Structure formats: C-alpha cells, structure tokens
C-alpha cells in the first residue's frame, strides 16, 4: 500500500477538506459516514487504503488530520452530514485563532499546539504500512494556515525527511484581498514551502473565480472554488487509487516536474470544468478535454504566460480514454507549448481507468512554468511597500518575528522569482 496522509490546516484548508472528502467518498462508493454504499462494488477499488483506514465494523476512516486555531469551520463539518466520518482523535481544534498574523500561528499559538499535532500525525502514520507522503491544504495569506502551516511543514520535514510533502497552497489574489497583511504572511510561508515541501500547487482565488465564473454561467461561491481544488487533488492521486495503464505516483510527479532544486512551485488545471452535479450531462470528446486541460485560462494561478517558458508538465487523463488518442493529441499539444530550450523531452503522461464521479473522462495538468515568478514578484513588491514604511511589522515583532527574519524571507522569495526568470 502507498498510503497518503492529508493534513488540513486553518479555515481555508478545512473548507477544502470539506469538498475534497465528499468527492473522494463518492469516488470510492462510500456514504458520508464512511460505510460502503449499498450496491457499490468496493473490491473494484483496489486501493481504498491509500486514503482510508479500515476499522473493524467495515467502516472507512479518512487518513486525515484536521487542524484549526478557531473552531468554526471544523465545527460545521462535524455538525453536517459528514459528522460520523472523521476520527475525533485526529482533530485538533483550538481557540482563539491566529488573528491573521503569521507570527501568532507560527510562534505564539503554534507553540502550544504543534506537539499535539505532531503526535496526532505520528499516530496516523503508524497506521500505515508504507506511507508515500503528505498532502497539506492551507491558505498562505491568513494566520493559521500560513503560520501554523509553516510550523507543521518544518516539523514534518524534520520528522519524516524521506517522505513526499505536497502542498496545495491558496495564494492571495492580485485584486481580491482578504486582509492587509497577506503579503507578509504569504512571503513568510513561501519561504517554508521552498525549504520543506517537495512540491507546491499554487492556487489563487481570483483565477479559480475566473474559471468557475466562465464555466458555471453564474456567480461562483467558495464551495465552487474549493470543488475545483478538490478535483485537482483527487486527480493528482488517482493513479495511486485506481488501476490504470500508466501509473504515476507522487514521487514520479516530483521527479518529472522539478528540474532544479527549489523550483517546485506548480500550477494546475482540471478539465472539463463543470459545476458540481452537472458533470455527466455533457459527454465531450477527448481532443476537447486535452485542449481544455492545457488551456492557459484554465490554470489556477496568475501566471505570466507571455514572459516565460514551460520547465515541465505532467498530464493525467482519467476515465474513458484511449492510449493512442492521448498520444496523438498530446504530441500536438506538446508542440504548441513553449518549453525551455534545455527540456527536449515530452510531457509526463498518466492514465487512470476511473474518472471522477459524474465524469466520463477528465484531464489534469500540473505545470512548472517560469511565469510563476510573477506571483512571487507581486507579493514581494506589496511586501516592500509596507515593510519599507514599517507598516504592521510591530504585530510580527510582538509575536517573536523580527524585521530581520521578515527581510530574510523577502530576499529568499525575491531570489526564487529571479531563479525562475533566469531559467527562461
């Protein structure tokens, strides 16, 4: 078994968990309580163990750790139809929150809870036979997901140096902003992701909003955005869970997607994008799925496509697709993508038999593009404007994060942006 442990941190991380686990339950034919649905053929899903731990009464418990510094979102999950799903011994719910301050999540509140979180993670890891790695969902602009998420990343890397750590990190949008201090939180978190994660899929709410709005024909809500993230996460792990002709595990993704150490920031795309519940109504042909998968406006982060090149790309197609069709279409798509001159090879491909529930077939692209530098440059320039005027830094200093630490993080991320630009 190659199990994966999901760690959901903060408000955003747990809202994603809500959508993600709903989708995974449906994909595996389970009810919201984790029991097999009547008539569902569990034995066909050979790799249930990747995401679930089976207990004696035939119930499947998600391999998930839910962490938040304010109880709201987790309480809503527990009060809803998935009330019986999660193991209460792996939920860490605290008060009084990190107040949008990375330093509080990382130092003050973080210090109180990190050992409990690590003990819960250790206990979950001990239930696996051969853990492949961790998926972390969080936002990098807030306080809990960013600050506490950073602390978890650091401790996780120390404790499990050889396991894969994949983060799904919701980054601040260029235009929509939740709080004034987002750039500080984001830059400090990105530094930890750079040092401790194997790969990070950056997701920005504005891009998700644009995708959702274009495809739904109505104004999308956060649930729609998180559903897109859930579909991406599901597809990244599909090869591990379902049989297929071309299997791709987390390790293979990392090997293929990260050409230089540290340049492991990715963007993702899922196709065909439809509103939840409407997926199966239109059966589209494979060339359209492939085209939509690699369409620039379908990617989930604000990439500077015009001034950059592809360093690497992976595609995973699920469901009713033919290998020959995939090869033909991907050869054409590969030609149309502007790859770096020193990357002569093709796109890494994967095929899994089972499409997400409701879809006949689907496509996922994970892309490492140098245009992601734009995301870092924007955050650094917003950071600089505030930092040079000493705005808001007292909150961080009061919680044990000096201006020097902040400046180091800023320089690290500015260098990261430069390393991407240099790779052009």
């Amino acid at each position: 078994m190659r199990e994966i442990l999901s760690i959901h941190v903060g408000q955003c991380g747990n809202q994603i968990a809500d959508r993600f686990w709903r989708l995974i339950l449906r994909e595996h034919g389970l009810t919201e309580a984790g029991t097999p649905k009547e008539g569902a053929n569990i034995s066909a899903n050979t790799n249930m163990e990747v995401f679930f731990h089976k207990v004696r009464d035939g119930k499947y418990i998600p391999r998930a750790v839910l962490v938040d510094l304010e109880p709201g979102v987790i309480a809503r999950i527990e009060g809803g139809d998935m009330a019986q799903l999660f193991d209460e011994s792996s939920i860490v719910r605290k008060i009084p929150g990190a107040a949008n301050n990375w330093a509080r999540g990382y130092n003050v509140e973080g210090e109180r809870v990190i050992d409990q979180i690590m003990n819960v993670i250790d206990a979950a890891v001990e239930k696996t036979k051969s853990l492949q790695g961790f998926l972390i969902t969080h936002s990098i602009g807030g306080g809990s997901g960013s600050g506490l998420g950073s602390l978890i990343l650091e401790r996780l890397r120390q404790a499990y140096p050889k396991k894969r750590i994949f983060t799904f990190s919701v980054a601040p949008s260029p235009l929509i902003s939740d709080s004034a201090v987002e750039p500080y939180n984001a830059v400090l978190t990105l530094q930890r992701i750079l040092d401790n994660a194997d790969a990070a899929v950056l997701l920005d709410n504005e891009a998700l909003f644009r995708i959702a709005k274009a495809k739904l024909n109505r104004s999308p809500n956060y649930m729609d955005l998180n559903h897109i993230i859930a579909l991406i996460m599901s597809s990244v792990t599909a090869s591990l869970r379902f049989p297929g002709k071309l299997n791709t595990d987390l390790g293979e993704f990392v090997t293929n997607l990260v050409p230089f150490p540290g340049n492991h920031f990715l963007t993702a795309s899922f196709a065909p994008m439809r509103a939840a519940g409407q997926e199966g109504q239109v059966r589209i042909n494979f060339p359209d799925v492939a085209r939509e998968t690699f369409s620039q406006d379908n990617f989930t982060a604000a990439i500077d496509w015009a001034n950059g090149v592809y360093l690497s790309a992976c595609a995973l197609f699920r469901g009713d697709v033919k290998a020959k069709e995939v090869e033909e279409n991907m050869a054409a798509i590969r030609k149309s993508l502007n790859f770096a001159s020193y990357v002569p090879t093709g796109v890494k491909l994967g095929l899994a038999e089972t499409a997400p529930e409701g879809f006949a077939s689907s496509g996922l692209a994970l892309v490492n593009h140098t245009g992601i530098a734009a995301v870092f440059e924007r955050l650094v320039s917003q950071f600089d404007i505030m930092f040079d005027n000493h705005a808001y830094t007292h909150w961080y200093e009061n919680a044990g994060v000096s201006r020097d630490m902040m400046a180091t993080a800023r320089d690290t991320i500015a260098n990261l942006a430069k390393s991407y630009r240099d790779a052009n």
Partner: protein
Amino acid sequence: MDSALERQISAASRSVEEARRLAYHDPTRLGALVEQISVLADLRQKEGDFRKAESLYKEALFRAQELKRPDPDLMTGIYSLLAHLYDRWGRMDQAAAFYEKALHISEDNGLESTEKVATIKNNLAMIFKQLRDYDKAERYYHEALETFQAIDGDQSARVASVYNNLGVLYYSRLDVDRAQIMHERALTIRQSLKEGQMDPADLSQTFINLAAVYKAAGDFQKAEASIDRAKRLRSGINGFHPNPRRSASLLIDKNL
C-alpha cells in the same frame, strides 16, 4: 525491537487515542489524557525514539495547562520527565532549563521540601556539573542533601548517594580534602545500612572513589587497600552488575 515493548507501545497508543476522543468532547477528561500521554512518552523513551517522547511530554505539558486548575504536582512531574529526557538525549542546556522550571512551580506551590523536589535538585546538580557550573551544582546538592536528611535522617541510602555525588564534584574541582570528607561520610553510611538497603555495587564504588582521592593525596597504601576492598565486593556480586557501564567507570555520580 523488543516485541514486548512494541506491544506495550501499541496498547498505549490505542489508549491515548481513546483518551483523546473522550477529552475532545469532555474537558474534564483532560487529566486522564495527560496521564495516558505520559505513559506512552515513557515507552517511547525506552524505545529510544526521543523525538516522539519529547512531542508527547510537551503535549502533556500544554494539555495539563488547559485544565481549570493545573495540578502543580503533575506539572512538576512532567517538567522533570521532560528534563530527564533531554538529559539522556545529551541536551544539557534544555535539561537544566526544564528542571529549573519544575523547581519554580514546586516552590510557588509550597512543595519545595518534598523528596520529588530533592531528587530534581540532585539531578539538576549533576547537569550543572557537566556544564561546569560547579557553584550551582554544589548549591543544589546541598539543598537536596538537607531535604533527604530531614525526611530520612542520616542513615539513608539517598543521603549517602548525595554525599557521593558531592565527593565526585569536589574531586572534579581538584578539592581533594573535601572530596575525601564526602566519600568517607558516604562510606560510613553505606557500611552501616541494613541488609536489603545496602547495595554492594554502591559500596564498592565508594571504595573506588576513595581510592582515587587517596591516590590524589599521595597516600598510595590507603588507595591500594581501598581498591582491594572494592575488588572483594565486586567478586561477591558474582560477576553480575546491574549496570555494567557504571561498574567499569572510575568516578560516577549516583542518579536518584
């Protein structure tokens, strides 16, 4: 790995999980959770997984503070267990800091003359000795000594052990005269202890320590005589020593 220990660990892990579930809904169960966590931490330490043991003890520490009225005795206990772990781990600075925290809590709560606190002071003194802060080490040994004397009287194995430790401390500071006085006091007590309380290994160690002191003072005859006594005692232990490393070393503190 020792399969008995493995079984104990998996049983303790299950108990911790169950205690977590109960405490999740009912904060009055936190005390029981802290207890279960400490049990698991102790087993992890035995297993040699210091990282996990540390995380568990630290969780116990923070969870115990969530209680409405944290129990000072419990808090002192967890701080000193954590300090003991750091000591074994070779992280002396952290060990000293956590033992001192344990002492502060017990002093704030009027527990300073208990044997638990005296034990902490003895162990803390041993750490300061290793950190070469001899004045602090001496002060803590004396405080521990006073408490053990008040509780046990003079004829006590624990009192003898602290004398032994003071002797070792003075010897490391090259204060041979005082080292001799301390080891002779330890010897008097250890020789007069009743059957059952007397540990021949400790007694033989005292002779070895005294031999070192006599030799340093230039009295080689006495030194040789002490070594002979130690050898005879050792042969009486039938070659078996509960702590072989200790039996092999010349000068050693007595951990309480």
